[in-house]
């Protein structure tokens, strides 16, 4: 859906404007007449609007990788599942700057008729929330029963609770928080470095030639390691060697973990745009809720929240480790905001919010179906 009108551009947080913004979104389940059952699910870095089910249009939309697997949170979202689409109307939008149907750097700039490339303006988590709100408004929705996301999606969920506190009934933040710690900033920088130093990068104008696939592969391999945990990798691969190691020099793939990362990165470059990777990781880096809403004071920031809050951390997550999540929860408690916080024991690392679907589903179901309780207003 287009969320801009002729002559009314989409204004970004940094003041830049986009004359035309198309948002790809998916809806699951029926909207109640009272509109009181909408759950907005916000996706993470490499996600899309296709949260659950099988895509029947892969031939026409060219997204052939979807022929092999259902939506990215299919185990959790669907009829009778933890986020029950028999009961709730689930909406998921692809974020601005991405490459799955929503306007991003790979789209054509209508003013130049060329792909945007790096001329695409910088986007922020706040811009994504504004984009989602514009879409919901066009759909005639003005309240959210819940907003729910993990990682980058958790940043959006939090930003919703801060920016539009009266919209959000329940807010679920998984493996995420008000800022990305320094280690995550470092990882993202290395990933971008790999992309931007690929000889095919061409300053981001690679759409007519060869895309910077090797850079994006390296970025994805690094990213993938950060989404797992040391223990999880030991359990999954150990030091198992391949039956048929790669040919050529002694530095070809030799261990299973190498083969896995190589395979993952190769399939990733077929479905992701390198420029989108740059824009989205930058938005993730820059997100700082305390800076935006409390002049750096997280407790002050949290006082804005009116939603019922669920924060979930995972014991082996490096990107948003439990201590980081606990700091956020502590700030809410200090601001006298009631909060539910759970630390899930897991070896799945940051990815746990996507792959540990049993404990995550149980928490989501319990929280979504729970009766609302009154809370103190300062």
């Amino acid at each position, binding site marked *: 859906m287009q969320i801009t009108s002729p002559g009314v551009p989409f204004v970004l947080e940094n003041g830049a404007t986009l004359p035309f913004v198309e948002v790809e979104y998916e809806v699951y389940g029926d909207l109640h007449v009272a509109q009181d059952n909408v759950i907005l699910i916000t996706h993470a870095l490499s996600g899309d609007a296709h949260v659950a089910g099988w895509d029947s249009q892969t031939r026409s939309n060219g997204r052939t990788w979807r022929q092999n697997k259902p939506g990215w949170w299919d185990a959790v979202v669907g009829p009778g599942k933890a986020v029950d689409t028999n009961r709730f109307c689930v909406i998921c939008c692809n974020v601005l700057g991405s490459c799955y149907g929503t306007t991003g750097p790979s789209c054509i700039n209508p003013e130049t008729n060329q792909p945007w490339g790096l001329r695409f303006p910088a986007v922020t988590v706040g811009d994504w929330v504004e984009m989602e709100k514009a879409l919901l408004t066009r759909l005639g929705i003005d309240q959210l029963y819940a907003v729910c996301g993990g990682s980058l999606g958790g940043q959006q969920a939090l930003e919703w609770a801060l920016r539009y506190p009266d919209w959000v009934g329940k807010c679920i933040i998984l493996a995420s928080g008000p800022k990305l710690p320094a280690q995550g900033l470092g990882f993202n920088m290395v990933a971008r470095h790999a992309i931007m130093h690929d000889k095919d990068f061409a300053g981001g104008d690679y759409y007519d030639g060869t895309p910077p696939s090797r850079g994006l592969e390296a970025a994805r391999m690094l990213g993938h390691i950060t989404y797992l945990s040391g223990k999880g990798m030991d359990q999954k691969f150990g030091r198992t060697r391949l039956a048929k190691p790669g040919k050529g020099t002694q530095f070809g793939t030799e261990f299973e973990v190498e083969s896995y990362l190589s395979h993952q990165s190769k399939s990733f470059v077929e479905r992701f745009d390198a420029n989108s990777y740059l824009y989205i990781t930058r938005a993730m880096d820059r997100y700082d809720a305390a800076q935006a809403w409390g002049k750096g004071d997280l407790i002050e920031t949290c006082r804005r929240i009116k939603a*019922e809050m669920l924060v979930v951390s995972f014991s082996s997550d490096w990107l948003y480790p439990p201590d980081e999540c606990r700091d956020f929860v502590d700030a809410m*408690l200090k601001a006298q905001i009631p*909060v*539910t916080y*759970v630390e899930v024991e897991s070896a799945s690392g940051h990815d746990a919010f996507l792959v540990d679907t049993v404990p995550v589903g149980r928490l989501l179901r*319990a929280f979504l179906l729970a*009766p609302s309780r009154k809370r103190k207003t300062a």
Partner: protein
Amino acid sequence: MSDDQEQIIVPGLLKILQELGVDSSSGELFELLHRAEDIHRKHVRTSSELSARWQDGVIEKLIAQGSSVLDIGCGDGDLLIRLAEERQAFVQGVELDEESVIRCIERGVPIYHSDLEKGLHSFQNDSFDYVILQNTVQTLHDPLKVLREMLRIGKKSVISFPNFAHWLVRLVFSLGGRMPVTPSLPYNWYDTPNIHLCSIEDFLDWCRKDQVHIEASWVLVEGKVLEYCPEHNLTAEEAVFLVQGAGGRGQGAGCRVQGAGGRGEVCSGGGGFKK
């Protein structure tokens, strides 16, 4: 109790009693032991269902309408739900057990999944009207640390615990020679979570020492809820105290009982805490 045990326990006990100048025949002592045994069995059978519920009733009456309440070690959130519904309280729980955490979430109780011996620094000074620690203090590794945290966080605190000086506990241990298993202490020595048990008077000693002000106190004596008086250190199975830290009130250290709000019977000869 077998004849052998009677042989061993009673002559030895008789000797001790005689040395203490207590005149008692072995027949009377047998009778007393059998009576204790019967009561003990009956109590263990009826088990602990009564205990938590009588406390919830007492605590509910304590809490003013619309108060904020933090229950540390809140279990499935029963008390918090009761306070939210009956007192329109604004509630927050802390609980470590994962199944209990899920139950709390399902029931809409905001719950902080944390070890309460580690997690209380998250809470601001005086940020809750009441902090509650129900039947848990005796399970803590560092009970004083947690009690002091409660006094810091809550304008008032409610602490309840089983009374280790209850006559049945004394009897089972001193005459039976066994670790006491009673309705309020329903565990064996090897599986008990209770590592810092105390009597009511032990607790009051600490209150005096730390200048903790007792605002009100209740005990469960043979199924009845009474205001505490020192005689109850022998007869009370459990106790509930409403307290306030030294920092939380303007004047006067030391312990005294304030009006207990007319609930329960005042025991004859009752009065302030001595010392």
